[in-house]
């Protein structure tokens, strides 16, 4: 009799489409990027092998360090801006009162727009000449009305991180909402009988029970930070100067605008290594790969 768990020709065949797609369009390109990082090539000319020259250039000029530093900064800023707020909002929405559910309907609306749409919208809200924010600040006397929010090198990255947070806090509060809904009501009842107040219950029941949601959300924010491209492309294009030139933006600029495929590929390889290293680290820390799909909380 046949074993249900044995491999057979048909099963090998069933794996082919996914493996083929992934090999051809993801894995092999990733390896090819490593090869490209050793070339002097503008995409049209005959590629020239230059060894580690591109690598030396980007590290010696400080370009790579700058991009890495900005990427880490935006990672930290996104986490700090998103995590506490998402947690509080998620728990808030999981409450029983009717008005909270109604608020939730509005809280999640930013999720409906693409990063490009969000970027375009905020670029007009923050426009220094006719933007909404400056108009509001001027009318209320809180500002001069001439603030160039994205044009100031010292604050551009913080403003970008704030917009990223506006876009993604709804997603993370949805996660926490779903997690908080799964906390058994009996825990709170027991605490209430013991005379615990809401603040006490938040810290000794809600927070510990949301541990896995916290890990998931943190993993997603940290790995997601490596990929903020769309929004920055639309909002600042990496500028002013190189104030928001994080890794993916620098990669794009070098490869597709400066037509320097070798240097662009160095950035791409750094990005890939950062992505894999970060998630292996986080997998180890959190056993994320044993995540189960539990959607009952929705």
């Amino acid at each position, binding site marked *: 009799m046949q074993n249900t768990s044995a491999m057979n020709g048909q099963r090998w065949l069933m794996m082919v489409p996914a493996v083929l797609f992934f090999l051809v369009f993801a894995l092999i390109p990733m390896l090819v990027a490593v090869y490209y990082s050793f070339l002097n090539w503008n995409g049209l000319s005959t590629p020239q092998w230059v060894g580690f020259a591109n690598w030396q250039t980007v590290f010696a000029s400080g370009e790579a360090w700058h991009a890495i530093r900005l990427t880490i900064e935006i990672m930290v800023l996104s986490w700090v801006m998103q995590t506490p707020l998402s947690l509080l909002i998620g728990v808030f929405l999981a409450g029983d009162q009717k008005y909270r559910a109604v608020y939730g309907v509005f809280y999640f609306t930013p999720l409906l727009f693409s990063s490009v749409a969000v970027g375009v919208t905020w670029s007009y809200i923050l426009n220094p000449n006719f933007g909404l924010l400056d108009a509001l600040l001027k009318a209320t006397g809180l500002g001069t009305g001439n603030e160039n929010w994205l044009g100031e090198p010292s604050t551009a990255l913080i403003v970008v991180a704030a917009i990223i947070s506006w876009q993604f806090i709804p997603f993370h509060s949805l996660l926490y909402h779903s997690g908080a809904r799964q906390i058994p009501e009996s825990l709170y009842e027991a605490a209430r009988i013991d005379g615990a107040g809401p603040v006490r219950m938040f810290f000794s029941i809600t927070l510990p029970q949301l541990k896995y949601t916290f890990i998931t959300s943190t993993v997603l924010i940290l790995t997601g930070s490596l990929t903020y491209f769309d929004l920055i492309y639309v909002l600042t294009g990496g500028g002013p100067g190189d104030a928001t030139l994080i890794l993916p933006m620098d990669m794009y600029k070098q490869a597709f605008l400066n037509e320097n495929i070798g240097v662009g590929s160095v950035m791409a390889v750094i990005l890939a290594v950062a992505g894999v290293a970060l998630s292996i680290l986080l997998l180890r820390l959190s056993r994320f790969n044993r995540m*189960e799909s539990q959607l009952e909380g929705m």
Partner: protein
Amino acid sequence: MEHGVGAAGARATARRSWWRQPLAWYQVAVALAGTVWLVFAFYPVFYILITSLRSQQGYLMGIPWLPSAHPTFENYATVFQTGFAHYFLNSVIVSVCTVALIVACSLLLAYVVVQTQNRFVRLVFNVFLVGLSLPIQAAIIPVYVLVTNVIHLYDTLIGLILPSVAFGLPLTILILVNFIRDIPRELYESMYLDGATDFILLRHLVVPLSRSALISVSIYDFVQAWNNFLFPLVLTQSDASRVLPLAITNFQGQYTMNVPAIMAFVILSALPLILAYAFGRQYLLRGMLAGFSK
């Protein structure tokens, strides 16, 4: 039965009691903070909407944070006159094909991963797990060279679909594997003994039992495909193959000062998601969470 009634009853009292009791300070504070966030989260969305309904004069002269007294749909007409329907159709084609291919390939692979203990299959699955963390951006240069110089699909919708499928696979496979694993083994074995082949098992057991996961993951992949910007930016160029996210930036380039028209474009580009939110909020939100909710 009795337990169910009791739980429902307790919930109802909990709900009733909060307005009977005098409001505690923290309830007021919480409601206030919730309202502040409501303004932060929703007002920009509201602003997109009211601005899209303004005339251009109204935008320059009026009070920007209030809705116009004379709302107009002229901006939506402008957007449609600039080929919006064509970009929309392109986006639909690309997103639907991408999702169909991702889900089909992932389902087949996930089934094999769950069914067998083979070491090579394990390895393949682990490679996909690592792939979960590969940023699309890291592979875009070779993908561009591949699509342009090797398979000669630059500036075509197919050239856009193929790499998008590859990068959608890892998460979809992970979610489906986790879901299919929960199907009791006895069900497979009894059907297998009755002579069912793998395809019969897939069609009559796996697909019906994992319908909710398939729907969620399809929604997730659709949203990703619909909003993807980097692939269209790098892999397409002409009007004929332009999809919506790229069309927004293009439209913005042409109508820089016509902010109301750009906001109308933003609204229309999100139309499928807005409609899904209006008519199937729970499905959409569940889909957006994919398998991340634990």
